């Protein structure tokens, strides 16, 4: 009984973690950017989605879509206002660009968080469940919404897989993550590819944000935590490796859930942190990391 509870509960949260982490690792893999405003983008999507669904009366489905669009716009803003200017700046030495991008996105993340808190207060908000009611899975009473969220997360990840492996643009993206120069030799515009990458990232982060709001609820105070969580999972799985992030997300999700059920809810984040420490000491490039 308890085991089934853990299995079911862990699956949904892990799927959501996976969705958030995949976007983060994708943008690093393709353009080398560690976007520390990641949590901020998710929070914007969640808050705007809530606003659209409730206050503006658009209803849950339309509101969710609006939220995803808001996430996408914020991702674009991050790229065009912060990341690209720094990458193109001639005043910064090439080996220092990464640091400046990191710092820049961190600052931008702070601006998003404070700005959102000003507009929305830091009270958590929730989006009404896409499907209401509960279902019974092997004796465990589970909200139908939770299953929907897991399904949607996997649908998004599946679409991403299709995109990367079956379309030309997707394959070019994959190529760019391995060897950017070679891809330009094949005739692709790097700047266009980057835009595509950020578009995909924005949509993924936006979906993750609204789903999180529907499942657990989101507030502006979560921004830093969400970035840290995606970040830890990606480090665990290996920077730039999408499959690594997926596996790591499930490991972390299940570790946390099992801890909350079997040990104590207060100690929930600890095992994954200990795992992170071990990985950093023993295998810093992560489970499936390349470099």
């Amino acid at each position, binding site marked *: 009984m308890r085991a089934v509870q853990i299995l079911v509960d862990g699956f949904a949260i892990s799927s959501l973690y996976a969705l958030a982490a995949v976007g983060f690792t994708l943008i690093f893999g393709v353009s080398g950017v560690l976007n520390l405003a990641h949590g901020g983008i998710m929070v914007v999507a969640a808050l705007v989605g809530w606003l659209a669904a409730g206050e503006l009366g658009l209803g849950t489905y339309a509101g969710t879509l609006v939220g995803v669009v808001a996430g996408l716009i914020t991702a674009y803003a991050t790229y065009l206002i912060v990341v690209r200017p720094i990458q193109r700046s001639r*005043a910064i030495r090439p080996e220092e660009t*990464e640091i*400046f991008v990191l710092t820049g996105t961190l*600052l*931008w993340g702070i601006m998003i968080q404070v700005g959102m808190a*000003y507009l929305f207060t830091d009270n958590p908000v929730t989006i009404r469940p896409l499907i209401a009611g509960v279902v019974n899975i092997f004796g465990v009473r589970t909200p139908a919404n939770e299953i929907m969220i897991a399904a949607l997360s996997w649908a998004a990840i599946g679409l991403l897989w299709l995109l990367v492996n079956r379309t030309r643009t997707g394959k070019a993206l994959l190529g760019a993550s391995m060897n950017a120069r070679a891809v330009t030799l094949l005739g692709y515009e790097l700047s266009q590819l980057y835009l595509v990458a950020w578009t995909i990232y924005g949509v993924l982060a936006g979906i993750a944000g609204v789903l999180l709001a529907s499942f657990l609820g989101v507030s502006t105070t979560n921004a830093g935590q969400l970035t840290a969580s995606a970040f*830890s999972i990606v*480090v665990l799985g290996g920077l730039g490796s999408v499959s690594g992030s997926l596996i790591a997300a499930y490991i972390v999700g299940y570790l946390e859930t099992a801890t909350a059920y079997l040990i104590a809810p207060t100690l929930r984040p600890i095992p994954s*942190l200990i795992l992170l*420490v071990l990985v950093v000491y023993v295998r810093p490039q992560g489970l499936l990391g390349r470099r």
Partner: protein
Amino acid sequence: MALLRSPLFWIATATVVVAALLPLWFSAYLLGVLTAAYYFGVFAMAWDLLFGFAGEVNFGPTFLIGVGAYTAAILNSTYGLPIPVCVVAAAFAAVVGGILLAVPALRLRGPYFGLVTLVAVLLLQNFVVIFAGVTGGEIGMTVPDVLSVDVNTNYWYALSFLVLCAVLLFGLSRSAVGLILQASGQDAVEAAALGFNVTKHKIAAFCVSALFSGTAGAMLIFYMGTASVDTVVDVAIAVQIIIAAVLGGRRTILGAVLGAVFLIVANEFLRPLGQLNAFVVAAIALGVILFFPDGLLGYALHRSERE
């Protein structure tokens, strides 16, 4: 003596003298702001030593600061040990933390190093929050002892501490060891080829940075009377330290002090904005990164070079 002829020396001395006399004119509140800024200046200088000279971007200066600060806070609050003992213990704990951090981190290149330092901060943050019973959790803990209740005394403590650290750190940066560090930072391969043990020197740099960060962290706690995650551990503070150093000019050590004072004063000056002062400061800092990546002192020094 070459030192006495250097204009930088005279400007620095004049600034210190003026700063020491400020209590005659400034209000208690402004002195309080500057006191905090001076401790922040030490944080920034310690970071600049590590980054500017050892070439290692450290996203977790607050790991070292936090370890020092909380060690001191817990020793004082739970065990009632006197302030000097707590500060020394804090420095020691921070150095240990620095070594623990340096060992895995230095095996990595590029973003991975920064990542590890960031992970260290996250770990400390979670540790503090989870063991809230001992550490006061997210919102903080109070310490029973403070350095002094008198504003002027606190101010002079902070100023003398800053000057001491500045002299030591600046001296280190210009010494033979400092030059080796700089070489290791700019081009590790060549430095190693020249026969220097690069790793040993970088670990030493970590330890020095940790020593100053941890001690300053403890001093800050005993000035404020509180220790909390968002003043000494949070990544946001780490970013502010980096901004301060970048704002002032990397690799100048003294520029970091300028950047720190500017940042803290700006934060307080914008306090009447209420909620949005953090937004404005972050925006200004972002603007500096985008348009003046060399920082104030860096910009000034480069201009004088060109002339």
